[in-house]
């Protein structure tokens, strides 16, 4: 019963944060709403007994990625008159909702037809660091190495993008 209450609270917070992200005009307020969504999603991950992913969500997503986005937003020093004027944005919203409601109801119907279990906490170290690490380095070793190459390529790419301005000005 306590877990259902937590699930309701976290899911309401997550949906409210997502709504705030797509409704606020300034990206700073949207980023703050997205932080609320990420932290409540971390709470939902604990209810699914994913301990390692809960910590990673808080450190990597809500910590690193969101602080990077917030840093860039503050770095660009966006004034309210720099924002694109989105007149008629609510007509777009109504149109998007009309398009998305059939897709969403179809997907929700599929999800309801799945066999479900109660989301109780699984014991035996399910989702702990050691168990996930064993699965990662035994079954998923090649994708893990490919991800490291992807991170290297994105590192080189962002260095090239950031340095190109200096080469042009010479």
């Amino acid at each position, binding site marked *: 019963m306590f877990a259902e209450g937590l*699930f309701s609270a976290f*899911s309401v917070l*997550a*949906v409210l944060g*997502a*709504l705030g*992200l*797509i409704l606020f005009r300034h*990206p700073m307020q*949207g*980023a703050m709403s*997205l932080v609320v*969504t*990420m932290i409540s*999603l971390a709470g*939902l991950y604990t209810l*699914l*007994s*994913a301990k390692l*992913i809960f910590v990673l*969500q808080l450190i*990597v*997503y809500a910590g690193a*990625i969101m602080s*990077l*986005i917030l840093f*860039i937003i503050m*770095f*660009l020093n966006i004034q309210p008159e*720099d924002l*694109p004027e*989105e007149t008629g944005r609510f007509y*777009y*919203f109504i149109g*998007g*909702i009309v398009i*998305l409601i059939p897709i*969403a109801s179809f997907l929700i119907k599929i*999800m*309801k037809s*799945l066999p*479900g*279990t*109660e*989301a109780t906490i*699984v014991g035996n170290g*399910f*989702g702990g660091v050691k168990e996930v690490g064993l699965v*990662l380095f035994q*079954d*998923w070793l090649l994708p893990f190495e490919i*991800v490291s190459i*992807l*991170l290297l390529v*994105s590192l080189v*790419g*962002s260095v090239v*993008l950031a340095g*190109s*301005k200096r080469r042009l000005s010479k």
Partner: protein
Amino acid sequence: MIQDYLILSVILFCLGILGVITRRNVFTVFMSIELMLNAANLAFLAFSRLHESMDGHVLVMMVMAVAAAEAALALAVVILLHKHKGKLDTNVFSLLRG
């Protein structure tokens, strides 16, 4: 129940799509993509809990790495475009129009 988590992930994913197709601010579009990645992560973890196997956890870690790489590159591109055009409107960034 597990289905509630899956339904929540569908709702979050649709809100992310709505943000991508309706907003014109570059940052809001980018953060909506992050929201869609998070909804996919929630679905991965719910299925992983449903089958009590930990492959979903590994996939979530991969998605997080991809999101970090995407954030670094996309923000560098946004800074370059902002330097060139001085705007944050996605309609202005039509450099590849034929």
